């Protein structure tokens, strides 16, 4: 540790005020605070400082993402070998997945961080930590075979229009990772949906069906995956959202450390179960009679509500607001899945829509609180007078 510290101090000189490379101080600062908790002290007044700053919070989320990521890498290879009927070992599957996924992660980080650094140097503020998580989330929710340049353009769009245009990390209305996915979804629909994209190499090799379960359902086909498979995650889908189990492991980490809000997660769960259950009772078509508990473990629902809906920037801030926000995400997600076969996966659109409404929800929650207190106060005033 002290070795890194010493070397950092050695190269720090030109970046400081008056130094040659003063302009690039934000870039240096980003690396330094990434490695070490900054030791700024407050000069006046009483403040409580926590060692867990934004960078440490983001790293917690990344650690929570890793189980799902590793399983996603394995599953990418597994789906490829199973569907093409080749013999394979555990290692083969893992290597095939790494070969596909690691370049995506590298591109996502390189492009996104380059823009972040550029803006930080230009605007003269610190580099925003938010991209550490976004950069990992984006490749995790894209199809495996997506061309890398498309991924790069989606990242540019998400960081520029979704984040920097609003003022950077902490100011964005929409979740940047989902902005990237929504952009790719509408811009390059042939690469983002259909039955040829969700399994590695499906578009090049005949006989591989790259259809997701929800896609098959929307197309009115039968599915031959059991609930156990859906929960474990040995199903086609985008990189890291297939396995509910590993997403849940991540969820436990986030809840234990208090990084994500349990109100939002539980709210979404209740909302989706309830609406799914209502549709089961109705049961007019394949999608409606798809069991409500299967809705919870298939597709990106679990991943979405654990890692996307709980994004502290774009979610509702008040406690009651979080309940409303979560419930509506769950309910809308199932509604979109069932009523709009063009968008088999509803969770992306549901979260983006509720991101837009989150400030409105907060406003009314706070307003009702104010009204309640005012009434109470008026009652007391009348009694005392």
């Amino acid at each position, binding site marked *: 540790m002290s070795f890194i510290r010493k070397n950092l101090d050695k190269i720090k000189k030109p970046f400081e005020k008056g130094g040659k490379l003063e302009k690039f101080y934000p870039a240096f600062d980003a690396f330094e605070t990434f490695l070490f908790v900054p030791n700024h002290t407050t000069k006046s007044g009483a403040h409580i400082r926590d060692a867990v700053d934004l960078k440490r919070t983001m790293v917690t989320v990344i650690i929570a993402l890793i189980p799902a990521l590793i399983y996603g890498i394995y599953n990418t290879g597994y789906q490829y070998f199973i569907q093409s009927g080749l013999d394979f070992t555990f290692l083969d599957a893992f290597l095939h997945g790494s070969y596909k996924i690691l370049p995506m992660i590298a591109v996502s980080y390189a492009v996104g961080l380059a823009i972040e650094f550029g803006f930080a140097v230009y605007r003269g503020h610190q580099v925003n930590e938010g991209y550490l998580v976004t950069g990992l989330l984006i490749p995790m929710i894209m199809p495996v075979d997506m061309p890398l340049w498309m991924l790069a353009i989606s990242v540019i769009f998400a960081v520029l229009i979704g984040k920097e*245009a609003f003022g950077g990390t902490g100011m964005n209305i929409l979740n940047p990772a989902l902005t990237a996915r929504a952009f790719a979804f509408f811009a390059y629909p042939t690469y983002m949906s259909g039955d040829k994209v969700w399994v590695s190499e499906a578009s090049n090799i005949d006989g591989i069906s790259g259809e997701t379960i929800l896609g098959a359902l929307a197309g009115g086909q039968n599915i031959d995956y059991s609930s156990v498979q859906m929960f474990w995650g040995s199903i086609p889908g985008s990189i890291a959202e297939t396995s509910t189990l590993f997403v849940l492991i991540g969820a436990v980490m986030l809840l234990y450390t208090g990084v994500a809000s349990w109100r939002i997660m539980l709210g979404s769960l209740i909302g989706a179960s309830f609406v799914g259950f209502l549709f089961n009772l109705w049961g007019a078509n394949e999608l409606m009679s798809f069991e409500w508990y299967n809705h919870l473990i298939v597709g990106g629902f679990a991943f979405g509500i654990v890692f996307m809906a709980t994004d502290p920037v774009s979610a509702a801030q008040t406690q009651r607001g979080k309940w409303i926000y979560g419930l509506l995400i769950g309910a809308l997600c199932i509604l979109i899945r069932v009523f709009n076969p063009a968008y088999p996966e509803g969770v992306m659109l549901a979260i983006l829509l509720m991101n837009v409404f989150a400030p409105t929800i907060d406003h009314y929650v706070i307003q009702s609180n104010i009204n309640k207190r005012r009434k109470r106060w008026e009652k007391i005033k009348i009694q005392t007078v």
Partner: protein
Amino acid sequence: MSKDKEKLFSKQNRALLTDPLDDNNPITVQVLGICSALAITVKLEPAVVMTLSVIFVMGSSNMIISILRDIIPTRIRIIVQLVVIASLVAIVDQFLKAYAYDVSKQLSIFIGLIITNCIVMGRLEAFALGNGVWKSFLDGVGNALGYGWILIVVAFIRELFGSGELFGVPVIPQFIYDLGYTDNGLMLLSPMALIVVGVYIWIQRYFNRKLIEKD
């Protein structure tokens, strides 16, 4: 009489033409006429035809209202303005149907909707009712140019990246498609027009600092 001697293109008059292009752009600064900017900018051709139509309608209507400005009773001025604009738009519509039927079909109701374009009536109310004929004409043409400029920029970007064409002619060479390039489908949807206009406003304010509001 000395006032009438003012040159046709004095500094003031030139400003009437050029101001709406940047400092006082109807779309990016006054935020008027957005709906048509979203609807007809998928391709360049309809955008250019729309621009020409709006230049004709705004120039002529500003001129006519300016001529009539002293005899229009204030109470019914809106109705008079509407009648003038509607007649001019009907002329444009018939003209397009006769000589450019395909484009007129693409533009469908949007030519008719020039009547409700806020920019047209806004300029009549704000300028033509209080200024001379020549100045009103310049003001109308200038604002229509400012509107059309944005339309053409947006349409250029959307057609180039959305369908790889300009004026319907493919411009992106085939070998780039062979390398795996794909046209951006989002460019063909209207939300992207809004985003392109937004990015234009961002860039415009970067270069034109006086447009930035003080908070």
